[in-house]
């Protein structure tokens, strides 16, 4: 595995700057998640690293070697796509062997057999090795396509929303599994998603992308607790952070335009009266949707308390984040 460094990379498609001056270091053995909505530049970044797209400017280093002019094969990266693409006429075993049979690699037969057995074990598909690829369930197929990347030992694994086409339940299981595989192999992974839970639970580092720019890079805890802007603060946290005018609660000192209030940082029983619009029972947590002077606010219900819709409760902020009018964080 290897460290991957992006230096001031840019990618322009006609007039559109898809990637705008992104610099980032993916440490050896790290699980880096790029988070952002559709169109933020996540997939383009992956394609630039893999060599499927050419840089407009900047440079990419893999293991200390500048790879700007190398072909995808020379770069030695393994990619997993959102839609599993297996060879339907081959068995699971043949699908897994395929990357190792590449003429460039010249892998000996015994090594192929051993690698495939190991990966099948890790992904818990050993018993399906002789099935045809088309006889598998969706989750199994996606495990095989992840397995096809894992049989090789590339410099870096590039994964483009590999779990997003799966059922919610299976997605949860595979998330835990993928994190375990990464930790046990010491693999370097760059993983793209718009799902904040995947980012929070799997990443050692999260990079937040916004319109082609890397707006913050740090551990999930840093991104959650110390966001640099409203945009970043809104990426992590369920329910999402409440963004409110700074003067709503008389917390204004100087120059603050907006406050960000995590739903769990709202004290109940004091402060201003807010109307309860809707109560959502999620089992482990009950969410309250409130209305305060025309502003919708979401908070978490206290345990064992009743909240009839239509009644009011008093609320007050605790440790809000303060932002300027342009959305950047003050303190």
């Amino acid at each position, binding site marked *: 595995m290897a460290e991957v460094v992006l230096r001031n990379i840019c990618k322009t498609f006609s007039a559109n700057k898809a990637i705008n001056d992104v610099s980032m270091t993916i440490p050896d053995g790290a699980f880096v998640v790029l988070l952002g909505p559709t169109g933020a530049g996540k997939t383009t970044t992956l394609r630039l690293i893999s060599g499927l797209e050419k840089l407009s400017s900047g440079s990419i280093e893999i293991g200390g070697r500048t790879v700007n002019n190398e072909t995808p094969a020379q770069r030695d990266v393994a990619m997993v796509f959102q839609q599993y693409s297996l060879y339907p006429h081959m068995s699971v075993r043949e699908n897994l062997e395929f990357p190792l049979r590449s003429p460039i690699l010249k892998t000996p037969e015994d090594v192929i057999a051993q690698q495939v057995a190991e990966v099948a074990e890790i992904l818990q598909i050993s018993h399906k090795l002789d099935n045809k690829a088309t006889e598998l369930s969706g989750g199994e197929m996606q495990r095989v396509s992840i397995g096809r990347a894992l049989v090789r030992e590339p410099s870096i694994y590039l994964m483009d929303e590999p779990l997003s086409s799966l059922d919610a339940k299976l997605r*949860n299981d595979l998330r835990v599994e993928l994190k375990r595989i990464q930790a046990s192999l010491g693999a370097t992974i760059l993983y793209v998603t718009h799902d904040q839970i995947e980012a*929070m639970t799997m990443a050692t580092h999260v990079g937040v992308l916004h319109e082609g720019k890397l707006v913050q890079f740090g551990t999930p*805890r840093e991104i959650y607790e110390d966001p640099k802007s409203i945009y970043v603060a809104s990426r992590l946290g369920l329910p999402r952070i409440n963004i409110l005018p700074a003067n709503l609660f008389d917390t204004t000192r100087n120059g603050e335009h907006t406050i960000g209030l*995590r739903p769990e940082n709202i004290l109940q029983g004091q402060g201003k009266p807010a109307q309860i619009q809707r109560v959502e029972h999620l089992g*482990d947590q009950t969410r309250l949707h409130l209305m305060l002077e025309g502003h919708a606010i979401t908070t978490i219900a206290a345990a064992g308390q009743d909240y009839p819709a239509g009644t009011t409760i008093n609320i007050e902020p605790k440790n809000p984040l303060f932002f300027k009018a342009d959305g950047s964080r003050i303190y």
Partner: protein
Amino acid sequence: MAEIVIKNLRKNFGDFTAVKESSFTIEDGEFFMLLGPSGCGKTTTLRMIAGLELPTSGEIYLDGEEISQQPPSKRDIAFVFQMFALYPHMNVRRNISYPLVSQGMPKRDVKTKVAEVAGILGIEDILDRPVGGLSGGDRQRVALGRAIVRDPKAFMMDEPLGALDAEFRERMAEELRALHDRMNATTVYVTHDQLEAMQMGDKIVVMNNAVVEQFGTPQEIYDKPATMFVADFIGSPSMNFLHFYGAAHQGAAQISMNGASYAVPKLHQNAKGNLVFGVRPEHVKLSDQGALRAKVLASEYLGTTQIITLESESGTLKARVDSHQSVRVGEMIGLDFKPETITLFDADSGNALASELNKGVVAHG
């Protein structure tokens, strides 16, 4: 609007049973979720209500009238698909008015009706735009508009948010629910996402392998699961299952598991053999005095809370604790459980044992 009653509904496709003897009631004005994994029969059930499939046997009542053999056009039900299909050559206004025009409604009435629907959905300003250039959200709103405009008795929605990006899905889920609260139309909604079901639904039917496993309010299904399948499917992470061999005694409020005694809700039945002790992650407390000793395997940060994975002699389990509580991977700690939340299951049948907790939900065994 309408009440929908499903009685012993069944659908066979050749030898394959897609839906087996389902019965439940959707009350007037409810937002009703059909939840389950792929292939459980939820979409087939929805399609039978809408009239897109004919049941093999059983009845469907819409406001007291049996409709199971009627064609879709006679049922007065609107269907919103996962892939919302709009007429690409028409603008927004014509897309929304199409169902009314084709019913032969006078022009003036169509205009009033479309304006009203556009107001509800907040899309007045895009009425004259072609649908080609619209954002995903606006396209979805237009598709909804086309369903609402007919004033149907009920709405059927087949994973309408399934194809959207996570953040946008959350927003649309809230918007859909708010729309429902304004219109109070009976809505049946199919999803495989338990969080979506818990968040939006008044009631949930959990289906698995063509069978209705449980039917109730979100909180009831979460707190009082009738089967291990439901306990596992609802909640993230799902309920912990600690397997043990033992006996449960009617009237007792404790259970002996692997040599230690644990308080549980008072049991209403006897059971003996392979049993399962079910506890939700947020009801596992880390405590030095805890009866069950466990080793910390991993922790996952989730903002406010963290999920701790633990290895005990009774099996692996997860605990949801405050993210400020410091836990070291590898350390040994004690675990306590919140007794009033425990569900015991029979491991062979997968059914919950009847207790004080789930009385009224689970039949006596």
